[in-house]
């Protein structure tokens, strides 16, 4: 569905036309409202309603663009490139859906987990921060304005630092984790904005489509090239691309459980989306330097991440930390899919973005339930808990299988696409055969680290005589929704793989060009 040029005189728009901005606006307004009301009882319901509304909006958006085309929305009716434009196509509608889905599913889970881990007086602010983080992530995905991406990136980052630091009620080390993340995240964002500055210097515009047009016209010069390097490396840090992942394990381990669930499934994913947008729609894979960066830097680093982080995960003694390192490895798979640079590979990356999101959210939820009952996530502490909390344990088993990529689970689908993508390129470059093999081999490492967790959960003798109770229903339901999703999307591949293929195709087409506002009267 291509954009309808506004040929009519009147400019009244229906609610449907405002969906792109509502996506961001709903949580954006809810955050301050929570603070102003200052009511501990109202904070959670408000946040939840806002998330649920966002989810509905994102599904409606995805529905409109899932077969191609895009929706353009000009903020306040100001014409781009001066005004800010939101542009929704299959790629970002997909990521918006993932973020609001995880946000909505995680909130019910957070209610009990947050009450357990964070002081009562901070609850209102916690949910306000949560909403801001949510807003930031949605915003940086929805917008088509490069500087706007930076603004939303900072909104999400700053609130994330606070959310991570709130883990300090349980473990003071959350403060240093948040501090490290702040330093690193700020450097990453700075790199990103420096890159934007260079692009602006060369092209004189900040609208992504506009930049793309001008880059195509003027060809490559040093400024534009360095801009690409800064943008990519800055985002690489937010993505936790190996070796810029060092902030991630600490932040995930010491953040409150619910925050870990939310961040693991969304924050890095939104950053990956921004990287994709810049690599494919602003810059183009046709530019040799962009291709070379992907093939000579991203590809080897992704493969190293798959192994190195998996080995670290395999030797961990803390479930949460193991999952954090496994995330670094899984991000390696996503980046590998992107760096293979064909449509199947990009589809694999986007599918894995979703599948890993739900899988990792499920796993972290399970660990959070263990933390609630056992007070920690070391294997020694959760020994035997799988038997004492059978429903939590079973959900974790499903998540673990999906993490490995066992057929019949979501994780298998992405790896299947990934291996296929590598094979597609194998005929002209035998190196890709080795890459396909390395995907399979590193999955074996996933078997090892997931197995170690299963062993602790089921086969080790419990540390104490006290029998742990099953997790509360409010935590179990989100877990099982995700667990069923892990299996569902492992069998029914039409929805996710279809949308991802559309997104990949859209990205490969490059920029859709500037929005033409013929006859619009403002």
């Amino acid at each position, binding site marked *: 569905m291509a954009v309808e040029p506004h040929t009519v005189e009147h400019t009244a728009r229906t609610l449907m036309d405002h969906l792109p901005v509502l996506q961001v606006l709903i949580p954006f307004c809810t955050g301050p409202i929570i603070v102003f009301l200052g009511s501990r009882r109202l904070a959670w319901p408000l946040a939840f309603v806002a998330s649920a509304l966002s989810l509905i909006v994102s599904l409606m958006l995805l529905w409109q663009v899932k077969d191609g085309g895009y929706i353009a929305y000009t903020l306040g009716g100001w014409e781009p490139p001066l005004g800010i434009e939101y542009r929704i196509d299959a790629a970002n509608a997909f990521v918006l859906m993932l973020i609001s889905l995880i946000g909505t599913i995680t909130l019910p889970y957070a209610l009990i987990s947050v009450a357990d881990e964070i002081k009562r007086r901070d609850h209102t602010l916690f949910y306000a921060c949560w909403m801001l983080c949510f807003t930031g992530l949605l915003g940086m995905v929805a917008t088509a304005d490069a500087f706007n991406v930076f603004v939303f990136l900072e909104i999400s980052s700053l609130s994330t630092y606070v959310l991570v630091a709130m883990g300090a009620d349980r473990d003071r080390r959350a403060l240093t984790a948040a*501090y*490290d993340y702040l*330093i*690193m995240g700020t*450097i*990453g964002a700075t*790199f990103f904005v420096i890159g934007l500055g260079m692009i602006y210097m060369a092209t004189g515009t900040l609208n992504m489509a506009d930049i793309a047009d001008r880059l195509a016209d003027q060809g490559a010069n*040093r400024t534009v*090239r*360095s801009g*690409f*390097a*800064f943008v*990519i*490396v800055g985002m*690489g*840090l937010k993505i936790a691309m190996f*070796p*810029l992942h*060092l*902030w991630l*394990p*600490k932040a995930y381990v010491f953040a409150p459980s619910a925050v870990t669930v939310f961040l693991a499934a969304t924050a890095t994913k939104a950053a990956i989306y921004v990287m994709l947008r810049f690599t494919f729609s602003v810059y183009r894979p046709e530019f*040799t*330097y962009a*291709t*070379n*960066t992907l093939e*000579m*830097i991203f590809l080897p680093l992704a493969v190293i991440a798959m192994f*190195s982080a998996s*080995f*670290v995960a*395999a*030797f*961990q*003694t803390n479930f949460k930390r193991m999952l954090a*390192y496994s995330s670094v490895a899984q991000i390696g798979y996503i980046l590998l899919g992107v760096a293979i640079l064909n449509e199947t590979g990009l589809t694999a990356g986007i599918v894995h973005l979703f599948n890993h999101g739900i899988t990792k959210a499920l796993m972290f939820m399970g660990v959070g339930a263990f933390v609630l009952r056992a007070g920690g996530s070391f294997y020694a502490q959760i020994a035997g808990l799988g038997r004492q909390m059978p429903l939590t344990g079973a959900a974790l088993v499903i998540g673990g299988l999906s993490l490995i990529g*066992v*057929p*019949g689970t979501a994780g298998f689908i992405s790896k*299947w696409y990934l*291996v*296929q993508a590598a*094979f597609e390129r*194998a005929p002209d470059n035998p190196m890709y*055969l080795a890459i*396909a*093999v390395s995907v*399979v081999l590193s*999955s*074996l490492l996933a*078997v090892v680290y997931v197995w170690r967790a299963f062993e602790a959960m089921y*086969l080790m003798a419990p540390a104490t005589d006290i029998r742990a109770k099953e997790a509360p229903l409010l935590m179990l339901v989100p877990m099982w929704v995700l667990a069923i999703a892990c299996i569902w999307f492992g069998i029914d*591949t039409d929805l996710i793989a279809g949308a991802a293929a559309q997104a990949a195709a859209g990205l490969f087409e490059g920029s859709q060009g500037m929005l033409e506002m013929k006859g619009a009267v403002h």
Partner: protein
Amino acid sequence: MMIEAIPTAFIFFAAAALILILPKGLARNIVMLGTPILSAVLVWNTGLGNFAQIPFFGFELEFMRLDKLSRIFVLIFCLAAFLGNLFAWHLRDSLQQVAALAYAGSAIGAAQAGDMITLFFYWEGTAIASVFLIWARGTAGAYATGMRYLIIQIASGVILIAGVAVFFAETGTITFDKMELASLGTWLIFISFGMKCAFPLLHNWLQDSYPAATITGTVILSAFTTKLAVYALARGFAGTEILIYIGTVMTLFPIFFAEIENDLRRVLAYSLNNQLGFMVVGVGIGTEMALNGTASHAFAHILYKALLFMSVGAVMFRTGTSKASELGGLYRTMPLTAVFCLIGAASISAFPLFSGFVTKSLTLTAVAEEHKLIIWLCLVFASAGVLSHSGIKIPFFTFFAHDSGMRPKEAPRHMLWAMGITAFLCIAIGVYPDPLYALLPYDLDYHPYTMDHVVAQLQLLFFALLAFAVIFRAGLHPPEIRAVNMDSDVIYRKFTPSVMRYLAFVVAALFRGVTGMINRSAARLVHRLHHSHGPDGSRAASWPAGAMVMSIAALLGLALLVIFFS
């Protein structure tokens, strides 16, 4: 989507789920026994064809391909499941019951798979379901063994799917049919099959795990995994010459180990390996006669091997041990079990009128028809070895030999029934092989009971018997009796001729050297990885912020370098 008949595996899985909601006891046992019978009847009535195709990812998965090759395996798997479950009638353990059904179902599903993705699903299914039969024993040793077993079985599955993926890239098809062993994909698939089939040097899991399982678990285990691999080889790699040599080595080397082994269940595991060798040779020859030999041998072998495992298992059930040095003289109180064991022994040794005779001779004839003299001689030698370690050693040291003083009760009635039915089938096939021959993949006009054939076989058997008798007589001198107090292993070795011991020593040292080297280098690698990637290693440590900033600066530099120079 086209489903004309329910794939047999689904019936088993449904039954496994049903077991969980039924009360322990009779109701469950009825399901345990009814499922294989019902399945076999359904398979028989369905006829031949391709009955269940389900689209998946743009592939057509074929869940139920019944042709003459797969049908005989499906039927014997059903039969084996029935007999194994009957033998385990006394069990009240949900885990083992579910595992047994799921395991049998997976094996049957794999035999019915018409494409290699379905094959992979079931391939992994057999691995995961069967390991619980080992873990069910509950000892620390069984746990470690189960882990080793699982790792190898899963690895086999992973190699299989990798091979299938490469094969698909090479040929664009995933149909499971005859392949040429010429490309990377087919080699991977071949190695995966070989791991399950316990090829030499890939065989250790077998002798490691089967004796470690529960009494009833071993009976179940012995039937499926390896024969599934034989089926897969016969389907995919019939006529691949290298299999002839692999199979020949397989028939030979376990003999030496079986001779010196004291644990009778492990002896049987070695002998299982040796029997697989015959089947692999048959696949390698690949003529119609040879493939018939393989299929019929697998059929008969499942029965007599189960019978032997059952009889040793029954003894273990009553006495608590399966060590040759601790047993002996049990025929006084367990006469029926002893008779059944002898029938199994006679079958595996291929005495005329027993099942082994009419099936093994097909393979031998096929080898002879191809004029492979050395292979033929090796197989004949291996046959003599089978007689020695399985035919004589098992019954002799369990039920006869020196009196251990134990007076256990006769085996429980359901075990006797299970053994009785199996023993009956062993004899029935031996006496009247025509129905079995009719089931075989290819039409066959073969008469096992010719004069020269019977005489040759009897000569072989009687001379082997004679040799054993002489050695035993010569060895049974006072020093051995005094040695009763010594380590059981040592006593047992004194019974065997020193030549055998010497050979075993050399072969064992060779294998131990190779496997030891692999183990040691693996241990060293893990140690080194732990040093760098372990919780205290540099890769997992928390770095100071400054170092992290360094890494981002370095990466930026690298990116700029690449971008400017391209």
